[in-house]
C-alpha cells in the first residue's frame, strides 16, 4: 500500500475512534496515547478498525513500534 492510502486509512480510523481529533490539523508526530489521549481500549479499536479497512493486522508484539500517528502510517504502508 502506498503511503497516501495508508495515511487515509489511519486518519479515517482515528476519526472513528476519537471523533474530537481535528484530522486536518493533525501533527503526525503526535503520540497516540499521550497526545491524542487514546487509552488501551481506544487503541485496540484503532487497531481493529485499521485491520478491517486495510487487512493489516498489527500483532501485539508490534504495538510499541506504532506509538505515533507517523509510526502507524509507516507500519500500514509497509505491510498493506
Amino acid at each position, binding site marked *: 500500500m502506498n503511503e497516501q492510502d495508508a495515511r487515509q*486509512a489511519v486518519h*479515517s480510523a482515528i476519526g472513528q475512534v476519537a*471523533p474530537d481529533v481535528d484530522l486536518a490539523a493533525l501533527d503526525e508526530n503526535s503520540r497516540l496515547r499521550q497526545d491524542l489521549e487514546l487509552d488501551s*481500549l481506544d487503541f*485496540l*479499536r484503532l487497531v*481493529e478498525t485499521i*485491520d478491517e479497512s486495510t487487512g493489516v493486522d498489527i500483532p*501485539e508484539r508490534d504495538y510499541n513500534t506504532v506509538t505515533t500517528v507517523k509510526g502507524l502510517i509507516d507500519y500500514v504502508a509497509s505491510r498493506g
Partner: protein
Amino acid sequence: MGDFRMPSLGADMEHGKMVEWLIKPGDFVHRGDVVAVVDTDKTVMDVESFEEGVVAELLVDVGTTVPIGTPLARITQTPDDDAGHAGHQPPSQQAQVPPPVRHLAHQLGVDTSEIRGTGKHGAVTRADVERAAAARPGPAPPGATAPPGLGAEEAPPAGGRIRSSPRARRLADQLGIDIGTVPGTGPDGAVTEGDIQRAVRGRGTPVPAEEALPAGKALPAEEALPAEGAAPAEEAPPSEAQDRLSSLRRAVGSLMTRSKKTIPHYYLSTTLDLRAAIAWMLLANQQRPVASRLVPSALLLKATALAAREVPEVNGFFTDGVFRPSSSVHLGVAVALRHGGLVAPAIHDADTLAVDVLMQKLRDLVSRARAGRLQRSEMADPTITVTNLGDLGVEAVYGVIYPPQVAMVGLGKVMEQPWAHDGMLGVRAAVTATLSADHRVSDGLRGARFLARIDELLQKPEEL
C-alpha cells in the same frame, strides 16, 4: 395506575432534564421498556419504565429540568382506567407503530403515517421504516460523506438507532436540525458535531471553522455557531457547553465534598506483579483476531471483582449509619469522557464473568458511556468502583470514594519495573494498585488483605 418518575441515576444526581420521549399517550409499555432519554449533569441516559400499562399522559415536556422523583408520565394499568384518553381505543395507526420503531422513524425523519406496515396486523416494522428512509430523497446518501472503510451499507447501525454523541444531539437541538437527516461520519455511522456543523453550512448558516477550537476544549456553542435568527448578544445566555461543563464540575464537586466530609478515608498502595498475567495475555492474544484481544485492564478488573467478593468490607453501601455488604459485585468503572468529565457505570456481576465476557462488556460500556448511551441501572448501582487512570500515564491514582460505596480502587500505568526476586534482580511488568476505603467499615488490615488478594489472583491468570 402509576406514575413514571424521574429516577435517581447516581448518588450525585439531584435533577434531570427530559431530552426525548420515546413514548406517547396511547402506547402500551412493558416494565423495562426504554421510554425516555434523560440528561443528568454527567451524561445522557436511556431510562426504562418501572410501570406496565398504557401511557395516559406525558407530564413533562422535552427540555424541562425537574428534581428526581417528579412524575414524568401517567401510566394506567388498563385503558379503562382512563377512558377519556386515546389509550382506550388508540387510533389504529398509532397502535401499529411500536415505540422503538417510531423512535427510529423519528430519528430517520420518516413519517410513519405514510408507511404501509408489513408486520403482524399491518404493524410498521423497523424494516419498513428503514426502507422508507432509504427510498426518500435525502440531503445526501449516508455513504457520500463517509470516510473510506465506512461504506453506505454500514451507515445505518445494526440496532437501527442513529448513533450520535450527546454534544452532537445538543448542537442539533440548538440549531433546530433533525439529527436523523444528517449523514454520520463517526464510528459505526455515528453523527458527530462536525456532521451537524456541515449540515448547518449546507443550509447556509455561517459557521466559523471548527479548526479555531483547541482540541479538548469545550465548544462555546453560542459564539461558534449562531443559529439562524440568533438573539442579540446581550440576551445570549452563557454557552450551553460551558454551562454543562460547570454543572458537571459542580455535580462532581458536591459529591466529592460530601464524600470527603462524611467518609473517613484511608489509603493503601501496593505493587502488583503482572509477569504471569501479561505473559498469559500475550500468548492468548496471539491466537486471537484483533476484535477479541484482551487488554491488561480486563484481567485487573476481574481479579479486583473476585477479591471484592472475598473481602465484603469493601463491597456494598453505607447508608443511614449502617454498612450493608452486597452479595453481588457490580464493578463501577470510571470512564473519562473525551470532552472532559467522568462517569462510572457498572459492569454487573463482574466476579462471575469470564475474562472474555468481561472484556467485551468493558468495551461496550466504555463506547456507550462516551456516546452518552448508558442504562439507568448501570449508573445507579455499582458496589465498588475502579479508576484506571494509569491507562493514560500516571503511575498511581488515589481515588475519592463515591458514596454510598465504601471503597475505590486505583490502577496506575502498567510498566516494566526492576524486580528483586530470590536475590536476583529482573524486569517485570507491574502496576501500582491503590485502595481508598471507608474506615467506618474496614481497617487497614482488611484493606491490605483485599489488595493482596488481587495480587495473588493475578498470579494464576488462567483461573481468572
